[in-house]
């Protein structure tokens, strides 16, 4: 069984010092929605910043001495090279501490790690992106890639859902995306007085349009239960399992398949993933608590 091709060797990791973070500085930190913020980082070493490149879907390990390290996917435009963006939900010690940082503060950074959305292999295809909640940030670099190369793709649809209208990320960008002919479909689990859009879970949005299974590729990230049903809907529309790509979340400590935590069957999600063709993980993904 083969996973996606390994991405190039991380720029900010030496083989001698796998767990040694490189220092970066906070250039900007702002709240997106309640308890979720975007932190922009720039390496203190200009040469490192210059040499650092990532592919859409990859992640970094962010480290604060005394607090620990967390795997955070990169949410910014791969072509924007002056700073690296991470949208973070403050849920644990590390992420909460990162949220309290100020411009100019230092943070340890290793990366980028993992496989990426195979966006370049999918040129010429229709693309369906399906994201739930904090699953949108790892997909956003792929959206930017498509925007930069819009003519190379067919129909592009983004399905995005969150629990409530106030939980939706990046809403101020949707208009620009729509202008570039990305069909942005948004839904919430529970509406409020302000909401005039769709209500329901993300997989239900599949019923709003027709997909061409011969042309379409699916990329999805979000809660595992959402991924499960997105895959179900995609397979029901005869999109082949090897053209459905999912990005998974697991506990990670090292980023290189050494520490063992992120295993899913034979795979280390940090190095064989986080992006997998569904066909590869199918035997294990459906097994509860595996």
């Amino acid at each position, binding site marked *: *069984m083969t996973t996606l091709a*390994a991405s190039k060797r991380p720029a900010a990791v030496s*083989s*001698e*010092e*796998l*767990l*040694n*973070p490189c*220092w970066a500085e906070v250039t900007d930190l702002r709240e997106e929605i309640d308890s979720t913020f975007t932190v922009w980082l720039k390496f203190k070493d200009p040469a490192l910043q210059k040499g650092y490149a990532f592919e859409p879907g990859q992640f970094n390990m962010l480290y604060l*001495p*005394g*607090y*620990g*390290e967390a795997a955070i996917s990169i949410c910014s435009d791969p072509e924007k090279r002056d700073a690296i963006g991470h949208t973070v*939900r403050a*849920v*644990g010690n590390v*992420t909460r501490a990162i949220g309290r940082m100020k411009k100019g503060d*230092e943070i*340890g950074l290793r990366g980028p790690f993992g496989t990426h959305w195979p966006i370049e292999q999918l040129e010429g295809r229709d693309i369906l992106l399906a994201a739930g909640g*904090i699953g949108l940030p790892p997909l956003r670099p792929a959206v930017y890639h498509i925007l930069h190369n819009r003519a190379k793709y067919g129909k592009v649809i983004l399905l995005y859902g969150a629990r409530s209208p106030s939980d939706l990320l990046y809403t101020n960008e949707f208009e620009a995306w729509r202008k570039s002919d990305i069909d942005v479909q948004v839904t919430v689990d529970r509406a409020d007085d302000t909401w005039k859009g769709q209500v329901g879970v993300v997989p239900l949005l599949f019923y709003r349009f027709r997909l061409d299974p011969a042309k379409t590729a699916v990329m999805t990230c979000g*809660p*595992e239960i959402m991924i499960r049903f997105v895959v179900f809907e995609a397979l029901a529309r005869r999109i082949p399992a090897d053209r459905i790509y999912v990005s998974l*979340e*697991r*506990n*990670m*400590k*090292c980023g*290189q*398949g*050494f*520490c*063992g*935590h992120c*295993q899913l*069957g*034979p795979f*280390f999600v940090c190095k064989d993933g986080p992006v997998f063709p569904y066909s590869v993980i199918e*035997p*294990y993904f459906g*097994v*509860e*608590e*595996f």
Partner: protein
Amino acid sequence: MADIPLSVGTTVALPKDQLDPLLSRLRDKGYRTIGPRIRDDAVVYEPIEGLADLPRGLTSVQEAGRYRIVASGNQRYFDITPGAQSWKQFFFPPRVSLLEFQKNGGWKKHSATESAPRLALVGVRPCELAAIEIQDRAFLREDFTDPIYRDRRKNAFLVAVNCLHPCGTCFCASMGTGPKASGGFDLCLTELDEVFLVEIGTDAGLEMLKGLPLKAADKADVQKAEAGLASAKERMGRTLEIGDLPDLLLKNLEHPEWQAVAARCMSCSSCTLVCPTCFCWDTQDRTSLDGAHTERQRVWDSCFNPGYSHQAGGNTRPTTRSRYRQWLTHKFGSWKEQYGVLGCVGCGRCITWCPVKIDVTEEIAALRKEEVRS
């Protein structure tokens, strides 16, 4: 007798009392000599000076959840079978400093200064050699190597001892890792009543023997050793059929046996700590009270710990059933796809040291017996 030809691959006879000069020679070369000795009624691997430190005339009785040191009935030095400790502690230390950070107008990192010790490990069983080779595959990959493991491993001198005295929880013969070592050592001893037969595994091993009063291995001794090893193979306390692994496990992920074993398993992680191949680790920050100094450490972790698979989205394996299944299907299943071999060497530690007597050989047999093919 001083002039028997020595070369890698040959076997010579070493008078028993010559192990002391061999060890002191290793120390002269800068090695710390580590071997089996008795502490708190169990075998541990600690610094040894020579024969006097070895558990002479002793062996252990081991069964599921039971370990006792007993007289072996003869005066050999290496009749002891492994205790809870394994040699992995020397290459993959249970707790090791990675980095330190001092807050001084900004965090400054400096790499941990501890350099890799030169260790001569004496009395490594064939199953344990196999375990070291398995950990090599995890820590010394082509794309990334672990520098701590690599330097410690490279500096080590391995004196193996073929196993003539398996115990009740041993099944190395089933796993194909023993009782005779097939390589991976500098020197390999087979202990007879009168002499050690010494197989030379490397040039470094050969160098250490030079000048010692060696004898040619006489035919009768070699035959005695072979007979002893053949008999040891027959006296394994456990057997495990491995022909249908890893498929048996990976195709039975919903087998009712997982629930049955989870009802007994305490998720205590003993099996992973005593396992010579388990390689999972965690990182921890130790910080001074004023927050000015942080030491980042690497510590052993276990897939049985609740935090092991916990992330923002919840715990992937919240139940003992899921954790035991992960451990067993990894060790005897997905390990093969990851590293090309199964992750078990048949040393039996996980059986002996399980407080509730869970036995991997029985669990795998149970999965086979009521196999539910999905």
